[in-house]
């Protein structure tokens, strides 16, 4: 989940005291990671990008506390556009969408410009999928010389932010120096850019120009958002526009030529309606209609009742609300999860275990009774452990392999349990003998492109007199306990075992497992200096025959 670090001062000056912050944040479904001197770090759920910044966060908290009330049309853009954005050539097949607006009378003094830049970065990282899906550019409106064109081309030039001279787009990329953006542009094969008729003001996901640089003295801004999803681009622009409206600045839309809408950002209040009992049914509590309206207000939603139906208006910054259910959750949050009383479900049912799980349990208790302790190993392992160390050959095609593991030794899923148990013996050199271990668990194999998941039991037995006869007895007695008195034995060859001291078991004519004395070379590979006898059986093969 995304976390955001904010200046504590920004929160307290907006009227929320430090002491009540953790609880309020928690009630909204976030969690306060730490308060560290002047800073506070908060974990925000990924559906609420509007909370990744101090204005949005304090707005939500103050609404919840009832300190402010949602107002009708507060976030509706009524003014006439000052600027026109035209969508030109070349962007359609790479980064097709743009949304933008202008701001006059903004105040970026003090720490406010930093807050804004931090928010921009956060949005890029999370909602914008590291600028791939969406990125934002802020410009000084007073330095914009004419209407704006958004287009893409292979060549062009711009004076990159932080530099004194105009250079080619290729040079700008070197100047910006981030591999990730380089990757995005390379995917496009050209540069999507925004210009004002006189000059290029930004290469969309990468960098702005020097001329339109925003400083803490900037009062008038042009904000452009570009990306590959209209939905995301417009949502980000709406959240930003609401932020400027809340700060007291005037926000004007831009007219859009060649886009999805005639004007951007498209920020309407969205209406949802639902029958009144639906909320009670979903939450399991009988609310009064008036209470629901108040609770909706506490989450920033406008609400009204008309006979048995409820109407809700969702402000543009609440991009997470996509259905009536989201509104019901808001009601629950405003009411407080801790106040919801547990309600027993009417109607009983009979608990039923899975058959193979039950069988596995009986194998475990049988082996415990025979003096074997239980091990549990990870399913992920390495070829070295699973095959090389036990001298087993393998076919690459039959091994379930992961594409990339952060821990390099975890590259495959095990095909057999026995090697894991041998490595456990190797980790138990300090403990006294005899050492008897078993494990019931999953094993994996690929056959004809399909993954076969099997359930096996393996046992190892290490002590100075451990031998074929003892493990044979263990296997036979185990099968007897499980109700299988008839089984066949065949001489088997498995490089993990000593030749001539290894047998395979058949139950009802089907191979069900293998046992024998472990090969000396294998013992030494694991640093073991006493004989070990081992067995591995497949539970499906055993119980497939006996369970019915």
């Amino acid at each position, binding site marked *: 989940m995304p976390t955001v670090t904010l200046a504590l001062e920004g929160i307290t000056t907006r009227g929320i005291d430090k002491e009540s912050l953790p609880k309020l944040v928690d*009630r909204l479904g976030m969690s306060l990671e730490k308060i560290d001197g002047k800073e506070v770090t908060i974990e925000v759920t*990924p*559906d609420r990008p509007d909370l990744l910044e101090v204005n949005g966060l304090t707005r939500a908290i103050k609404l919840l506390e009832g300190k402010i009330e949602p107002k009708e049309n507060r976030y509706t853009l009524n003014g006439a556009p000052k600027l026109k954005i035209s969508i030109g050539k070349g962007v359609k097949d790479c980064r097709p969408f743009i949304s933008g607006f202008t701001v006059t009378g903004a105040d970026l003094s003090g720490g406010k410009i930093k807050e804004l830049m931090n928010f921009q970065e956060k949005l890029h990282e999370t909602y914008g*999928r590291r600028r791939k899906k969406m990125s934002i550019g802020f410009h000084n409106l007073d330095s914009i010389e004419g209407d704006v064109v958004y287009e893409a081309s292979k060549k062009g030039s711009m004076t990159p932010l932080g530099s004194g001279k105009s250079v080619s787009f290729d040079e700008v990329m070197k100047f910006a120096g981030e591999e990730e953006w380089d990757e995005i542009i390379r995917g496009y094969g050209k540069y999507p850019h925004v210009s004002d008729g006189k000059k290029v003001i930004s290469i969309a996901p990468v960098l702005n120009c020097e001329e339109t640089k925003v400083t803490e003295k900037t009062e008038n801004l042009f904000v452009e958002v570009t990306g590959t*999803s209209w*939905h995301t681009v417009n949502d980000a622009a709406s959240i930003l526009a609401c932020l400027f409206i809340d700060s007291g600045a005037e926000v004007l839309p831009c007219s859009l030529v060649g886009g999805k809408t005639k004007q951007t950002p498209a920020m309407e209040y969205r209406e949802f309606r639902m029958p009144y009992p639906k909320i009670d*049914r979903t*939450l*399991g509590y009988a609310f009064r209609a008036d209470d629901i309206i108040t609770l909706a207000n506490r989450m920033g939603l406008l609400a009204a009742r008309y006979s048995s139906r409820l109407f809700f208006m969702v402000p543009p910054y609440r991009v997470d609300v996509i*259905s009536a*259910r*989201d509104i*019901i*959750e808001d009601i*629950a949050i405003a009411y407080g999860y*801790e106040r*919801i009383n*547990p*309600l027993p*479900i009417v*109607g009983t*049912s009979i*608990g*039923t*275990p*899975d058959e193979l*799980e039950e069988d596995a349990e009986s194998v475990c208790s049988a*082996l*415990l009774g025979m003096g074997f*302790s*239980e*091990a*549990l*190993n990870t399913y*992920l*392992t*390495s*070829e070295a*452990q699973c095959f*090389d160390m036990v001298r087993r050959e393998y076919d690459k095609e039959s091994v379930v*392999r992961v594409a*990339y593991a*952060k821990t*390099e*030794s*975890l590259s495959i899923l095990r095909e057999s349990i026995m090697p894991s148990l041998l490595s456990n013996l190797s980790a*138990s050199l*300090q*403990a*006294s*003998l*005899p050492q008897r*271990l078993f494990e019931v668990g999953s094993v994996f194999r*690929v056959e004809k492109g*399909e*993954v076969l998941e099997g359930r096996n039991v393996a046992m190892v037995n290490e*002590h*100075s007199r451990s031998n074929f006869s003892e493990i044979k007895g263990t296997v036979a007695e185990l099968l007897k306990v499980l109700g299988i008195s008839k089984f066949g034995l065949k001489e088997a060859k498995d490089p993990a075992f000593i030749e001539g001291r290894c047998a395979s078991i058949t139950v009802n004519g089907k191979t069900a497992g293998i046992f024998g004395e472990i090969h000396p070379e294998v013992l030494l*590979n*694991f640093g073991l200096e006493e004989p070990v006898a081992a067995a591995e059986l497949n539970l499906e093969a055993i119980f497939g025959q006996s369970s019915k």
Partner: protein
Amino acid sequence: MHEYEIAVLKILKKEKKVDFRELEKASGIDKDRLMWALENLKAGGLVEIQKREEKRYVLTDEGLGYLHGMPEEKLAASAAEKPIRLDSSVGKIALSWAKRNGWVEIKNGKLAATAKWKADSSKGYGQRLALESVKEGKARESEAIDALIKRGLAKPVVKVSSIIVTITPKGSGMETEAGGIGAIAREALVSGAWKKERIRPYDINAPYEAFYPARSHPLHEMIKTIRSVWLRMGFIESVGPIVESSFWNFDALFSPQDHPTREMQDTFFLSNPKLLDIDDLELLSKVKRMHKTGWKQEFNEELSRQAVLRTHTTSVTVRGIQKFANALKQNYPLRLFSIGRVFRNETIDYKHLAEFYQTDGIIIGDNLSLANLIDVLKKFYAQLGMEQIRFKPSYFPFTEPSLEVQYYDEERGEELEIGGGGIIRQEITKAMGTDRTVLAWGLSVDRLMMHRLGIPTITELYKNDIGWLRSRPSLKV
């Protein structure tokens, strides 16, 4: 004195000084018991034991895997072929050793091999030669060996090469022909000899002969407890595959296709098999529609087919919804649970494992509510002795409303997030073909486990050191 001790002393009185192996042969007592008897005699000051120990080295399985080439060698070799882009596919360990050996340098943001690599690679790499010497059992202490140990590729083991036992004057003076009956022999019993002779009293404070009870794995005990709680609460157990398609693991759960958890960094994608078939094409097209309307973005069927190691048992849950939501002859509410392994691509340390256990559940029924869900979860945790839980809002792509379960750990004085749940989104239930309500949750098992056992590191759980298994405390429920 124990019979074994008497037998050993008798031999020693004659021989004075004996090699352990000779003693084993002469007494006919097996190694483990003989050692126990000797330790007892030593504790009584009757014998002296001289152990000659030898430090040896063995390979770890990771070390064994590198016998044919260390990662840094592979990295330098491929950089020598063609400069490599520095991204997440370059192993950290390989890179740091290749740099330390002066084999690679960064040129224009890319990794290139140096002249030193050419020189070194023809000589043979010291660490790998050391690795081979370990394999052959010829390794001696050296800098290269130390490096291997630090990297976890080899480990030292102390082996006893010989044991010499000498009798002390006190031992020589010890009476071994003590009168009376020692161990109760059949003959003495049947013949009535036990009536005529004194049965010798034992020292009740003497150490007992070692024996080791078989123990089950604590994690399994925890799983058994959780299973029995669900079964008592009327739940049907369901199981599902561990290797799962992205369709069931992500798409069917309304997780957007461009979501960060669907990157290689977090999830184990497979290279063999790379793709899995999705049989139910009708369901696929419904899920596709759900994504297009819900997330307003394109849906790629190829991504759906990508094979992953399931990241949660919620994949079993959603399969359950599809299977049971409209099944005939079902009584609703229908309760299902599952418990099993799940996987996350993590760098393993004391706090993180790449695999752990999760338990999931659903209840399918009509008009089920958030208050019902809270009731079920409270009852579940109460049966595990955890009354101190609370619920807070949360977010999951597949539930709405959603909640998170918080548990207050009194001993540590901290709150732990131990699970999540909610009401399955209508978009999903509709795609699965039902109008019924589905309550769902996924709860962490390993966190409860660490709490229960009081173990500080989670890796401890999968080491299976028999010494630890034998001596670990039982679970308190």
